[in-house]
């Protein structure tokens, strides 16, 4: 299972240094083509009509007037997207989310779509579609949705994981429980017990590029889709099964992607665009407006969480219980389950129990958002640990170090950890100069930890060597943050050639075997692994060719520093053959030289981080300003430190936005009130200081270079780090995120009124 340690320990020539990304020039000159930047001959404009109601029965959709409008080439409803999911409920949910089938389940749910010759005509056509709704009672709050009295959104939903199974349907799709030990006994041992309830509001991934695609379906059943996605192979499979295409006949090309963070792991309007193109028999370009992105595409869950933790005077946590309620939007999800797996994962707590409730509400279908479900659980747990530490009188860092998980600790979800880096990050935080920096008036400092899994998954990579010795690397994992440069560096490292001689590209679905999404921090881990093996595969071919050129037995040829070297009796003195020389002769020694690898990159490592946050709170307005921030995270092995730092800084900033101002605001009518960047307030440049980073490298034994995914963990600690900092600045403990100025000011007032 493990990899040869000599690779983990070896000194690298290319890996670990900083190189410019291959797509850099295209992106700074405006040449890079994103989802909305492609066009096709005769292309039409696609637009989607969305429900203005939170929950409504769709009595009738009359599309006649729209169809008769000159310039309209197709109008589709659910009737043009028949259910071919044959019992696969997950797929059926995706289909229903793409196009309402008899019922609008949330404000913004697609009910019809048009394809017309231009924007103006398409907009007119949408107004001409007459939809008769019958409003139904709605529920958007996770706690309210769990009440007996709440309107039940899906009659088919019987709560899983409850014994005996309920007889009545409800909005609770599943109950999850994890943990071990005897928590009652644990609390009995405790000198101090803290119990708190937290709430976190719904946030959106907020990628700057709206969903966009260009779909073209031919009468013979062949089709092409150009789309901004985190996984074009998965999009291909899903779209093919939803629309009844043969997988091989649907060619999906991933455009440059303008941010995803989980939101582009899921199809939204792509199947609709394909359905429009199929009906119009013309290419259809469908680009979402920003309001559509907020109203109808994957936000994360809003939550409500109870935490109870007990500890001895010496700081040992004897028991911990979390009960977590996560809404997954209008369809069942497993978000609370993920929370159960991560809530206490940073710690070694002899008695721990996590209970998760997955809840359905009239909101858009939740999609993964960077370390999905972990930040909310961490907000509750990491805040509670600070309260506990304060009551006992130990420093928050020592409290955490005292209970930190190590190699050999049993994870809350069962298995025993291998080598993990959480203790290293905490120690690094404790020793960091940031911890000794002076704080000014109204300032406070907070620390918090975070955990997220890495996943591996199916990966396929090609490496082709040109006759001039330069190398093309064909990858199947979408590059969301600079992974093309990392892959090129790995190939250069293995082959022993300069980085500049390798060109990495993302191949379309007809040119490579299946690749899973770029999700779960897997891009560099899994494609990196496949690239290593593809390069070693090519090296074997290079050695064979060198052997032929020399006329020596293959086993007498070794590869070092980018050249073939003959060893052994009689030909040890042959001058080495460079990759360039072997490539030049390849036509006459057996044809093109290529390396290939398909792998199920399992055994991904664990991502752990600890953050330090300094905040200044204006006691008169409740406004919090981040004055200093430091991220410490274990990267296993940083291939390109520039982009590892970038992941740390970006994730931390998303977490800071969530901690301070980002939230979905629903009205009493169940409609989203802030579907735009004006009132959905993501951090702007002037809101932030520089984000300091420290990369730790605790190698992952299951990767040839020891790589761990770094993409997601950095969004986990900030909510609690900011909350703990605010508590230390003001004395008020915030239990509702975002900790917006009105909430903080109200909390300060309550504290003062309490005397």
């Amino acid at each position, binding site marked *: 299972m493990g990899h040869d340690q000599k690779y983990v320990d070896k000194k690298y020539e290319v890996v670990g240094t900083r190189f410019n990304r291959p797509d850099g020039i295209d992106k700074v000159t405006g040449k890079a083509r994103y989802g909305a930047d492609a066009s096709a001959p005769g292309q039409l404009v696609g637009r989607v009509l969305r429900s203005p109601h939170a929950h409504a029965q769709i009595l009738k959709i009359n599309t006649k007037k729209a169809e008769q409008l000159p310039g309209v080439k197709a109008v589709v409803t659910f009737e043009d997207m028949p259910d071919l999911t044959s019992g696969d409920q997950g797929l059926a949910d995706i289909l229903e989310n793409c196009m309402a089938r008899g019922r609008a389940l949330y404000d913004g749910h697609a009910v019809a779509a048009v394809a017309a010759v231009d924007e103006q005509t398409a907009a007119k056509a949408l107004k001409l579609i007459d939809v008769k709704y019958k409003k139904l009672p709605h529920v958007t709050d996770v706690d309210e949705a769990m009440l007996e009295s709440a309107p039940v959104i899906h009659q088919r939903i019987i709560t899983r994981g409850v014994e005996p199974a309920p007889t009545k349907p409800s909005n609770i799709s599943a109950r999850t429980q994890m943990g071990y030990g005897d928590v009652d006994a644990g609390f009995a041992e405790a000198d101090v017990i803290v119990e708190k309830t937290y709430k976190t509001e719904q946030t959106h991934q907020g990628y700057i590029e709206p969903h966009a695609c260009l779909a073209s379906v031919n009468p013979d059943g062949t089709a092409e889709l150009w789309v901004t996605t985190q996984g074009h192979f998965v999009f291909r499979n899903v779209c093919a099964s939803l629309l009844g295409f043969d997988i091989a006949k649907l060619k999906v090309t991933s455009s440059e992607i303008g941010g995803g963070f989980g939101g582009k792991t899921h199809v939204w309007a792509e199947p609709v665009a394909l359905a429009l193109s199929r009906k119009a028999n013309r290419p259809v370009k469908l680009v979402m*407006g920003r309001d559509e992105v907020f109203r109808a595409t994957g936000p994360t869950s809003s939550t409500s969480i109870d935490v109870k933790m007990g500890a001895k005077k010496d700081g040992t946590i004897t028991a911990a219980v979390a009960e977590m309620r996560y809404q997954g939007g209008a369809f069942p999800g497993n978000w609370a389950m993920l929370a159960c797996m991560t809530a206490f994962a940073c710690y070694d707590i002899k008695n721990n129990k996590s209970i998760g409730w997955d809840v359905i509400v009239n909101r858009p279908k939740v999609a993964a958002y960077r370390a999905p479900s972990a930040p909310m659980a961490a907000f509750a747990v990491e805040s509670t640990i600070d309260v506990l530490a304060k009551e006992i009188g130990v420093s928050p860092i020592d409290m955490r170090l005292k209970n930190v998980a190590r190699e050999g600790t049993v994870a809350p979800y069962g298995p025993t950890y291998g080598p993990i880096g959480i203790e290293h990050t905490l120690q690094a935080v404790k020793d960091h100069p940031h911890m000794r920096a002076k704080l000014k008036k109204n300032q406070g400092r907070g620390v918090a930890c975070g955990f997220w899994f890495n996943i591996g998954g199916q990966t396929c990579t090609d490496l082709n060597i040109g006759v001039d010795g330069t190398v093309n690397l064909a990858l199947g994992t979408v590059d969301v943050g600079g992974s093309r440069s990392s892959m090129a560096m790995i190939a250069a490292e293995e082959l022993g050639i300069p980085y500049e001689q390798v060109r990495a590209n993302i191949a379309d679905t007809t040119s490579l075997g299946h690749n899973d999404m770029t999700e779960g921090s897997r891009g560099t881990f899994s494609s990196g692994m496949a690239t290593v093996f593809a390069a070693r595969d090519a090296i074997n071919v290079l050695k064979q060719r060198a052997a032929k050129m020399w006329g020596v037995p293959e086993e007498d040829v070794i590869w070092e520093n980018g050249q073939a070297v003959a060893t052994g009796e009689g030909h040890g003195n042959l001058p080495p053959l460079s990759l360039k020389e072997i490539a030049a002769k390849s036509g006459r020694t057996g044809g093109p030289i290529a390396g290939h690898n398909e792998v199920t990159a399992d055994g991904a490592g664990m991502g752990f981080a600890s953050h330090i946050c300094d905040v200044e709170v204006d006691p008169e307005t409740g406004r919090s300003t981040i004055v200093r921030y430091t991220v410490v995270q274990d990267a296993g092995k940083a291939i390109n430190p520039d982009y590892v730092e970038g992941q740390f800084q970006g994730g931390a900033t998303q977490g800071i936005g969530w901690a301070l101002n980002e939230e979905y605001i629903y009205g009493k009518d169940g409609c989203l009130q802030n579907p735009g960047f004006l009132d959905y307030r993501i951090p702007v440049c002037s809101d932030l200081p520089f984000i300091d980073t420290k990369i730790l490298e605790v190698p992952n034994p299951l990767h040839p270079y020891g790589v761990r995914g770094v993409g997601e963990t950095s969004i986990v600690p900030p909510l609690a780090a900011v909350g703990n900092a605010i508590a230390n600045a003001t004395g008020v403990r915030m239990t509702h995120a975002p900790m917006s100025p009105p909430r903080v000011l109200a909390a300060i007032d309550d504290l003062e009124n309490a005397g």
Partner: protein
Amino acid sequence: MSNATLVSTTVNGDPVQFACPTDESLMTALRDRVGLTGVKEGCGTGDCGACSITLDGDLVCSCLVLGVEAEGREVATVEGLSADGELHPLQQKFIDHAALQCGICTPGFLVAAKALLDRNPNPSETEIRYALAGNLCRCTGYDKIVHAVQAAAKDMRKKKRR
């Protein structure tokens, strides 16, 4: 195309003519009619800055300008930044400092940063942060972007002195 109007303007120094509906934004006209897709749409309401251009030298969101307003004006987009095969110092520093991840916001940042450095060759960190507050980036946390702008400013001041 209903009630289209012919617009004669100058884009990145070149005379350009396009016909667009009177209610079409300059952003859409530049993208769909002039083919300058380096002008990005992130919101269409002036909140994200991805469509930033200069109009007669003024920094604006092209989504908040009508195409027909460009008549007789001077438009500059990211496509016009690099002259005769040379990257603009801002473009080079954005690459060198890894100031982009997904890159969708990069054209807007470059146009806004150039507008800043044109009027203030030596901005403080705070001045840079406020000048770029109208450009949203969701990937980087702005850290490497601000560093890149500082480095480019330094570079450009050196070049001037020479």
